[in-house]
């Protein structure tokens, strides 16, 4: 079979007109075919596999020449039933699932779920301070890595490849820190109901301080490359405009809302995890366009760096402090430590349950297999993820498993603005508009 035939595309004639299967470098055949019919209107099916659609996003664009007259999104290609799966695992195991949704901001997924569970358990006041600070530290590191990917891929899509290479270079540093602290580069399942899974490993604070120092040198590079770059501005300024009214109607939060000039940041307005005790500013811009969103993200990375600096300072004074709630009915039986074989066992704990205490063994077994019960009710504790308001609607029926966990993912909500942002513009601007929303399909489809 020849490569220019798509076996899945069906017939090349429909009631709506001619069908062209595009495989690259064959624009002439389309232009010729259209010229024969004198047709100006084409419907382009872009994606789901396309390098500039941020994962498996399908765009259906109706074009008049190069102007987009209608733009619609087709989503669901990455739907993995995470919310349904969570209903069949214990409350602690739920973290392992939700961390995989928005894979660029795993700690935020874990955090909003865990905050909901803790609210239902009514143990919000018992979370150790060190756990709170570690959560803040990890979330802010994560905000930097997420914004870096957004800026990097956004740059790549408009041909600014250096922005992409330096963006991923710095993101790698953050992932190294994640690996050091949690053991994994993504899918951490590190924030657990009651605290965090493990204490900081030795040497982590030094690495974090070195990272802060390095980032202070590297972040200005982005500003120098992009902020006043005429090509960069030419592609981003006045593209994908959505004003404050539009943002609120369509439910957009995060950088798009702040780029419209409204300083709404849940870390400031409805603080959680002790954010009210950190010194940082909410960054805004007043143009409501893609350029404004870029500038907001760039400025937010500086603010995150400020928070990380303060968190590291606090952690230095909290060596040996607990990182898990004292309630043994909720906390995992032991604080695991990495042994010489790299496995996360605690030999002291194994000696205790296997040699000394039958009750300890039973307790361990029950807590790990059956899990703890969470009082019946529902909770919704949203947090400020890099993309906006991320919230988990957690419902319990008093059992050992979530009765329902629904995630209000900002990528899902914000992606609805694609039509408004790109209709009437050029087809090349659709890519810029979507990049400025920064959708992560893992979060959109869940």
């Amino acid at each position, binding site marked *: 079979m020849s490569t220019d035939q798509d076996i899945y595309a069906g017939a090349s004639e429909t009631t709506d007109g001619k069908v062209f299967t595009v495989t690259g470098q064959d624009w002439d055949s389309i232009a010729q075919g259209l010229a024969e019919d004198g047709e100006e209107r084409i419907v382009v099916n872009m994606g789901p596999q396309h390098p500039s659609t941020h994962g498996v996003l399908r765009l259906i664009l109706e074009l008049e020449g190069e102007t987009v007259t209608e733009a619609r999104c087709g989503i669901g290609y990455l739907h993995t039933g995470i919310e349904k799966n969570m209903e069949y*695992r214990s409350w602690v195991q739920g973290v392992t699932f939700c961390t995989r949704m928005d894979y660029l901001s795993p700690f935020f997924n874990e955090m909003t779920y865990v905050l909901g569970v803790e609210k239902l358990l009514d143990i919000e006041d018992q979370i150790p301070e060190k756990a709170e600070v570690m959560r803040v530290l990890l979330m802010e590191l994560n905000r930097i890595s997420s914004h870096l990917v957004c800026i990097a891929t956004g740059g790549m899509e408009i041909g600014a490849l250096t922005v992409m290479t330096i963006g991923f270079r710095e993101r790698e540093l953050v992932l190294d820190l994640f690996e050091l602290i949690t053991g994994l580069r993504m899918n951490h399942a590190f924030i657990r109901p009651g605290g965090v899974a493990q204490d900081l490993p030795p040497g982590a604070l030094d690495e974090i301080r070195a990272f802060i120092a390095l980032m202070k040198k590297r972040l200005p590079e982005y500003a120098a490359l992009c902020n006043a770059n005429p090509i960069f501005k030419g592609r981003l300024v006045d593209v994908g405009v959505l004003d404050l009214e539009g943002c609120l109607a369509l439910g957009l939060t995060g950088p798009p809302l702040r780029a419209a000039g409204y300083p709404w940041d849940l870390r400031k307005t409805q603080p959680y995890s002790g954010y009210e005790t950190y010194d940082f500013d909410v960054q805004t811009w007043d143009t409501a366009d893609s350029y404004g969103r870029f500038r907001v993200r760039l400025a937010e990375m500086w603010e995150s760096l400020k928070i990380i600096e303060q968190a590291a300072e606090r952690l230095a004074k909290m060596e040996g402090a607990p990182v898990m709630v004292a309630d043994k009915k909720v906390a995992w039986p032991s604080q695991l430590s990495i042994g010489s074989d790299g496995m996360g066992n605690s030999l002291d704990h194994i000696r205790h349950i296997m040699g000394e205490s039958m009750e300890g063994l039973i307790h361990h077994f029950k807590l790990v297999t059956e899990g703890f019960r969470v009082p019946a009710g529902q909770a919704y504790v949203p947090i400020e993820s890099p993309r906006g308001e991320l919230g988990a609607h957690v419902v319990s029926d008093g059992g050992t498993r979530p009765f329902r966990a629904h995630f209000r993912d900002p990528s899902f909500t914000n992606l609805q603005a694609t039509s408004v942002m790109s209709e009437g513009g050029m087809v090349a601007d659709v890519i810029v508009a979507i990049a400025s929303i920064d959708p992560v399909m893992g979060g959109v489809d869940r």
Partner: protein
Amino acid sequence: MSDKTPEQPAVDQSPENVPAPVGQSVHQVGERQGMFGVSGTGDTSGYGGLTSAILYPGPAQRPYGGWYDDVADALTAATLGAGAQHAVESVVIHRGEITFHVRREDIVAVMRALRDDPALRFELCSGVSGVHYPDDAGRELHAVYHLLSMTHNRRIRVEVSVPDADPHLPSTVAIYPTNDWHERETYDMFGLIFDGHPALTRILMPDDWPGHPQRKDYPLGGIPVEYKGGTIPPPDQRRSYN
């Protein structure tokens, strides 16, 4: 065993010793069997015959305290003007979150009041979340809306319950356009039909998918996995506790 309640002469003689009433009322949805909720294999704990009710927090009584009363008063006043004075069936306050249970025929009027009334001003709707309570007879399917007032910095929850036999409720897309995709998702996952939605089609599942996966009567699916001679059943068929 007698079915008479035990006599309590001490209570009759000294009424001051009557136990205080439970502060919060409860709402029963189904019950749990046995000690661990195990099904299939036997409950060997000796508590296999135990039956415990699944109790959700019940309606709260006035005064609710804090700004809850302000919101409730403003909502009552605003819905009165819209001719929907019986819109709110009950108000539940649990863990510092307030939930208004609203009759489905009044949801549009209530949402409009919540968005537009200067004393309410819930500008942002954080979407719709469906919940399926198969044991809540006559109110099996719930649509849960989380609203945020940025002006007053308040959050409330609005909940609409509909029977499984008639899963219709009015769409709120005209008031909160953001609910467009959220309502499609809730339809896709639960089969809730939002009347008046501009294009209520599936969004996450394929267009020709049968059934609504997040409903409790929809199986999780999965296949048994063989490993070194042993077979591990899919997650929904393993021994589990609940």
